[in-house]
């Protein structure tokens, strides 16, 4: 039986299997069709129906279930929904157990959340540091301008305030007003 205790391990292994079998497009199709439109249909229905309120309900439940130590902060304002992830339970599991088959595991999140947000009328600003920390800002697709200044939305909980956020050797990957994992910015 395939278990849920080590789900992130065989999930990550599956990304690599899909890429070896059908290339990057197959991995993207998997994130969209299997995860966004099937596995996470409960998240999809909530967010399509309720927007920011749906995001708060979904991530409030699922992050608490996956991360009982609450290594995250959710901030909902009138024009932005923000998540600061300080201790990602998913990437953290892989790091702790030395599991790395696929090039950038963290891309799976925007891989399924991106198409969902596109359908729900939102765009995403996002960065991850490949070490279990990331931040997300969802805004209506009509939003213009950049992402928030450090601390402006989530205050002291802003993950970018961590001394280890972008410490030496860490490579940040970023997205601006994106809904597609292929919209990743070139690393500077």
């Amino acid at each position, binding site marked *: 039986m395939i278990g849920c*205790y080590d789900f992130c391990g065989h999930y990550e292994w599956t990304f690599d299997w899909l890429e070896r079998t059908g290339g990057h497009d*197959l991995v993207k199709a998997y994130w969209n069709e299997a995860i966004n439109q099937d596995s996470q249909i409960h998240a999809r229905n909530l967010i399509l129906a309720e927007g920011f309120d749906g995001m708060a309900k979904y991530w409030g439940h699922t992050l608490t279930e996956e991360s009982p130590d609450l290594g995250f902060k959710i901030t909902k304002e009138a024009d932005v929904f923000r998540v600061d992830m300080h201790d990602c339970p998913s990437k953290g599991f892989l790091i702790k157990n030395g599991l790395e088959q696929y090039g950038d595991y963290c891309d799976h999140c925007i891989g399924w959340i991106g198409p969902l947000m596109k359908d729900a009328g939102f765009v995403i600003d996002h960065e991850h540091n490949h070490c279990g920390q990331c931040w997300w800002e969802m805004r209506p697709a009509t939003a213009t301008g950049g992402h928030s200044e450090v601390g402006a939305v989530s205050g002291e909980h802003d993950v970018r305030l961590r001394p280890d956020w972008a410490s030496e050797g860490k490579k940040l990957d970023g997205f601006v007003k994106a809904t597609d994992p292929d919209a990743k910015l070139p690393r500077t």
Partner: protein
Amino acid sequence: MNPSLEDRPSELPYRDTKPQGAPDFYFATNATFRFLLKRFGREGWTRYLEELGRGYYAPINRRWREGGLPVVARYWRDFFAAEPGGKVDVEEKSDRVVIEVRECPLIKHLRSGDRAIVKEFCHHCSILGQARASEAGLTMRLHGGNGSCRHTYAEESAGLPPQDPNDIKEAHL
């Protein structure tokens, strides 16, 4: 026996900080199977499971090969202790380990979430289990499914009959 009461190191090679997994991940396993079956058919899905069994589970297979049936029994006790919602008994006999799944945690959660379960779902335990057992020099057979079943991991000398596909039930809500 409640595995958490046993005074020994866990047989699970990959450890989390929480004692049990998040059951909503079962939705993703079911969705992954649906995606693979749609894209590649039964043959491709089988190939995925066999490669998963030989690849991802290689550290466990090695432990089974080195430690034999006692390790297999301890592994499955630890495994089901970390899966939320199941009712499972693991019995070690002289030539086999029998895992009686009285209530499958996966099928139970898919049903409680009102998820359409791929009908081939229960065959994954057989395909994956046989691939893993083979790597460990063992044989595996499955009987039942759709919420309750019996897994048998045995030494070759036990002479288990070939797996009868008709012994495995289709899954449904």
